[in-house]
């Protein structure tokens, strides 16, 4: 089994138009997903641009980023267990994030 990192990209304005009923449904779906057997862990990130530090020729400098606006942010990440990329993608396809228009980036964790 290999470990995969799921990066959930988000547009913060995307969910603001959901109705209360839809918000509740969304909470329930997101929570239900974390109860799945392949789920290992995850964290939610604050809804801002974050900071990027670049070497800047020996004088490291922090700037807002990697996205310049808060139109798109990294909403959070999960780790899951899967045999290979195919399976990891299959499992990720069941995530409600996609139903609500979000994007999921799937990366395999290096293992020796």
């Amino acid at each position, binding site marked *: 089994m290999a470990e995969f990192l799921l990066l959930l990209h988000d547009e913060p304005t995307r969910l603001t138009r959901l109705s*209360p*009923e839809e918000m509740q449904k969304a909470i329930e779906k997101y929570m239900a997903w974390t109860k799945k057997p392949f789920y290992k862990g995850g964290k939610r990130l604050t809804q801002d641009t974050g900071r990027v530090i670049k070497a800047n020729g020996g004088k490291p400098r922090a700037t807002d980023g990697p996205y310049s606006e808060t139109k798109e942010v990294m909403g959070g990440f999960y780790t899951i267990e899967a045999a290979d990329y195919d399976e990891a993608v299959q499992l990720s396809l069941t995530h409600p994030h996609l139903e609500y228009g979000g994007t999921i980036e799937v990366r395999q964790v290096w293992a020796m």
Partner: protein
Amino acid sequence: MTTPAETGPLLDHLFRRQAGRIVAHLTKLMGPAYLELAEETVQEAMLRALQGWPSQGIPENPAAWLFRVAHNLAIDAVRRNRTLREKTDAMVAELTRSSSALLDDPAVEERLRDDELRMIFLCCHPEIPRDSSVALSLKTVGGFSVREIARAFLADDAAIAQRLVRTKRQIRETGLTLDAPSPSEMEARLDAVLEVIYFIFNEGYTAHEGDELIRLDLCREALRLARLVAGSSLAQPRVHAVVALLALQAARNEARVDAAGNLILLDEQDRSRWDQKLISLGFHHFDLSMAGGPVSRYHAEAAIAATHARAAVTGSTDWPTILELYDQLLALNPSPIVELNRAVAVAKVHGPQAGLQAIEPLEVDAKLRHYYLLLATRGHLLLELGRYKQATDYFRSALECRCSEPERRFLRRKLDDAAKWGRFPTCQL
């Protein structure tokens, strides 16, 4: 067979319910002019829950969490709003005081119910056009979104949004308040509320091509609002009649369609699928509706629904009583639709020929001439009389009228029957 609804970790419809009562409460604290601010605040609180709960877990008391966060957001919003000026401090103080209230305190519960009630009466103020009252009630008290309301009424989002903006402006500009109606205006105000509630229910109950789920939600919300009014000091016998009517009709919701989404007429429904809990609720309020006072149209309609509900076995319906009740209803609320329904009862009691005669005068009404139910009823009675050719014509005309997809399928089925039997005249009995 019914499968139990999938239940999440949260109480069903918790957010929608809480949205309504928190908006009502914040509007009470800040004043109806700030209804929009209250709505935005509650929406933001729900969004925070959506962002936080999936990773942090659901708080022990989700309703209290939403209540508190919405208050805090409202306090921030009031502080930021420079147009409030000298009113700011008083509003912040009011919101702060309220935010520490404990939701499990019965006195607080009572107050929140009272806020919701005042809000319904504001939304249904006789000065507000009915369609606007309906949309505003669903939005502010019901916790429905613009899109959900639009879906329920087959309108577009922009039109509903526009209507809500206009209505809120009207409330601001005419200075409508959340004060309880004075005794002199009580009757008219209560009637306006009941009319809106009944309208919401009928929109949900009438089969149209709208989304099935949202229609059931409308019925549920109308019943909830009616019970809210019935449980208050403003209740009068006719409010109980409305609760009875809604509950008894809603009890049949499940039995009205088959698995394929086809309509099943009352006569052919599997009565074991009628919701017994709603039926008992209906009869309970039906009894309360008899506590004196004038007889309203709702009394007559509830009595008709109760007579149907009493017939536990198909074919045991007491049609003579129903016909008498339709006569009463017609006197209380003369309308061509009531007359059409009465004609069906006439046919049941005195035969299809008498039913046809009762329908005839309605056909001069220009508005009804293209009403599919009138044509379909006529077709149905002709079918019973064995006049297949004419029945076919009427079902065909009915199909040309505006009606929903399930209704259309139903009419096609009837048309097929008429055509089939018409082809084999020897089979006529």
